[in-house]
């Protein structure tokens, strides 16, 4: 691990840009909910629905627990003079717990929830689901691929026919069928995504194992009496790491797109928990009046997929460079 900074600094620009972008998105999604507030809070729908980006409002917290969002508030003797929905109202100081400024940096949605807070919280779910599904895909794919490639013969034939069969089912229909039969939750989402995308990894790993299996260093390890799991983990896997990582990066982008589509269709995470796809589905109903509720989640999905594609491209370039300059 000590060599990582050095190897990263001479890595292609795309790889560094991709990693930086991904870390930035993951970072703000992780930290964001602490800064941007509660994404599910519906504070004062009549005055806050569909505020355009950059709107500034004043939030008045009353002692009875309710919250008012007003256009303007000025401190006067004995309380606050507030302008709400075009009418002036005077709120006595005894009823007020706190008054503070509130900025809707990216606007608000149709029930007045802050879009920035929802997008960042949604990013947490979308990234967590995408990364967990990738982990599941890799575990199944590596297992099946390594077993098929190493064992060969009947095991290989049977496993590869299973791969063919699962590949022959249109992914989205399979996911609809499973989503119909199971209650949607982040866990089932991960299971559905993982169970329907491992076949590509399995094929890739099988090919790598087959081509490395008869190399002298693997034969040497076999002669030395190393067990099959040890050879696969210590000798074969490290040599197949680059194509697998490159494939995994692209796959992460695809998984995030599929997760967004499923959430958009309503087969993903249940509301009111925000997710990027679900936010766009909500925004579609008011698209005629407001474009901004849909914009930020779409941009963040795209940036995440771009980051993944940049990492994959960068790895490929690094590989080419290594071959070109021995």
């Amino acid at each position, binding site marked *: 691990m000590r060599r990582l900074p050095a190897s990263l600094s001479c890595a292609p620009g795309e790889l560094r840009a991709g990693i930086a972008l991904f870390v930035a998105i993951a970072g703000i999604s992780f930290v964001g909910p602490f800064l941007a507030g509660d994404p599910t809070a519906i504070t004062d729908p009549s005055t806050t629905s569909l505020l355009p980006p950059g709107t500034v409002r004043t939030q008045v917290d009353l002692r009875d627990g309710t919250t008012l969002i007003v256009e303007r508030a000025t401190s006067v003797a004995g309380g606050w003079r507030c302008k709400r929905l075009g009418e002036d109202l005077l709120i006595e100081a005894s009823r007020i717990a706190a008054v503070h400024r509130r900025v809707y940096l990216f606007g608000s949605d149709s029930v007045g929830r802050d879009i920035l807070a929802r997008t960042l919280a949604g990013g947490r779910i979308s990234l967590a689901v995408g990364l967990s599904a990738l982990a599941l895909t890799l575990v199944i794919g590596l297992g099946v691929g390594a077993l098929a490639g190493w064992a060969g013969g009947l095991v290989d034939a049977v496993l590869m026919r299973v791969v063919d069969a699962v590949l022959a089912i249109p992914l989205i*229909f399979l996911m609809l069928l499973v989503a119909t039969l199971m209650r949607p939750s982040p866990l089932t989402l991960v299971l559905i995504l993982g169970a329907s995308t491992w076949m590509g990894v399995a094929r890739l790993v099988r090919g790598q194992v087959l081509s490395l299996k008869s190399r002298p260093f693997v034969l040497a390890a076999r002669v030395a009496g190393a067990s099959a799991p040890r050879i696969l983990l210590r000798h074969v896997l490290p040599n197949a790491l680059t194509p697998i990582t490159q494939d995994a990066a692209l796959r992460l982008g695809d998984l995030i797109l599929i997760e967004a589509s499923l959430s958009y269709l309503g087969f993903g995470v249940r509301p009111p928990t925000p997710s990027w796809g679900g936010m766009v589905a909500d925004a579609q109903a008011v698209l005629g009046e407001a474009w901004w509720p849909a914009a930020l989640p779409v941009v963040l999905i795209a940036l995440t997929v771009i980051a993944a594609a940049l990492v994959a491209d960068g790895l490929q370039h690094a590989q080419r460079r290594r071959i070109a300059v021995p």
Partner: protein
Amino acid sequence: MVRVVLARIGVGAVLVWLVATATFLLVAAAPGDIASRLADPRIPPEARQRWRQQFGLDRPLAVRYADWLRTAAAGDLGVSWLHRRPVTAVLGRAIPNTMLLAGCGLTLEIIGGIAVALVQLRRPGGLVDRTLAWSSLAAYAVPTFGVALALIAALSYRLDLLPPSHMLSPEGELARGLPRLADLGRHLVLPVLAIAITGIGAMARYVRGSLLDERSAAYVLAARARGCSWRRAIAVHALPNALIPLVTMAGLSLPFLVSGSLVIEVVFAWPGMGQLMYGAALGRDIPLLLGGTLAATIAVVAGNLASDLVTAAIDPRVRL
């Protein structure tokens, strides 16, 4: 050759059977039987029991499986619970609509992708190349519903140029001949664009990479040495070879003609397979879901076979 093709068709049939069995078992293994999930919990148990009998759910699994397989093999996929009509009839209405939309989208995507890659490679690494490379990366990365909604918001709501949804307007539905066709064309533009934009991004990235490898191959250099112009060397010598993997890709996207782009069809309320299956999933219409999955699976298997055959026909290095 014929024997190989027949053998491949046999393997394909086995695959379809495997998928059919797997999806059937998946439905059967789901917690709670369908009669108890489908209906309102307030329905009395006797009615529920009658339903079970009507759908044949009171029989053992093996009997149900054998029965379902026999009728499915004979081309009868049961009756859709939502539409109250045979599944084959419901699918038969939806598939042509999907083929129209997906066919147009796919054609535009392939032509556009090749065109963008060719423009990029006039000067690799140049300003045009880099701009287009970033644009196609962005186009590939934006989710299809994002592209679709942006198109609707801009061209339909803002500028009021094109209809935002459905296949025909009420007037078009009543019209015949040319006016009907014109109405259909107007409704096609946005969904086709939405499919093509994301597709062109992926396609251009792919063709560019493949063409970049080909153009430095020895045979292109040889063509240049014989006095062939760059343009001709690329278009006549390198491009056909660069497109061979594209045939495989096109074959893999053949099922797209049947299953369609579900998201696009849902966004634009296009009455095709995707929309149908989406409705079936929301309404828990199991026979329709199973039937649609089976139809799309057959398309996948047929697409794979077709692409292998075409690849073998155009690439002398590949034998079946």
